């Protein structure tokens, strides 16, 4: 069970949060222009990284805000959290 430092509420237990998968996959502005392959890339294909991954979390039982997290998926160590729209921290 992680302790997650919500950028808005502070340190809370993992049970208050929900994971939202890989971060920085921007919804295409003009989906209709995309080929089936390009659309599938957006819809389904994931990096699924072993190591440092950028991902989305939601503080469902707190401020209800979505935010981003940098986590090492090989040992679950949380390296950083940052707000939506903010630039990901460079290491």
């Amino acid at each position: 069970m992680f302790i997650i430092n919500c950028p808005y509420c502070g340190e809370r237990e993992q049970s208050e949060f929900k994971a939202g998968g890989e971060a920085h996959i921007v919804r295409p502005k003009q989906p209709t222009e995309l080929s089936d392959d390009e659309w599938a890339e957006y819809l389904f294909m994931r990096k699924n990284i072993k190591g440092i991954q950028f991902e989305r979390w939601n503080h469902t039982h707190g401020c209800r805000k979505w935010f981003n997290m940098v986590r090492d998926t090989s040992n679950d160590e949380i390296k950083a959290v940052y707000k939506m729209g903010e630039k990901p921290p460079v290491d």
Partner: protein
Amino acid sequence: MLNYNQALPEKKSFQDLQIEEIKPIMKLIIRGKKREFISAFGKALNILLPTESNTSTQSDKLTALWLSPDEWMLFSNKPIDENTNDYDTEKLLNNKISKINLGAITDVSDQFVMINLKGNKIYELFQTGSPFNFNNFQNKKGAVIQTILAKIGIIVHNQDKNIVNLFVRRSFSQHLFSWMNDAASRL
């Protein structure tokens, strides 16, 4: 005339712990991002919305709880008349906020049940079902947090030493109340 049926008619007393619903309490969810919004709100009700996370502000009539950077709960300090749900505060805010698109005001008086807990066993009770660390919270008058108790989302407001207001959605309230009483009976 319609009858008013509160969610938790029963008041419960245990050693060093009382639990009861306070009703009717006007509760509004206040939403807004713009700076003008904050000031407009302050002017309208001469109470400032708390901008620091996990805190609250209070006037003689109203209390405002921080819920998120753009969301607050405003509630009446005293019970209001059962026989009307016309709230002057809501009307006022609608005119000063919603109508001019500064933010949003939503009546949630019955969305949430306000449960008042009194006594020095409050946090012992919370410890049986909430992962939140109340160690510092207990000593911070006016502190507010949202967390889970018995797997149910709650808002907790530290009104004063060993006096706490707990807000829970109405449809969950009877389950939570029964759960709390069961736990309290063995503290």
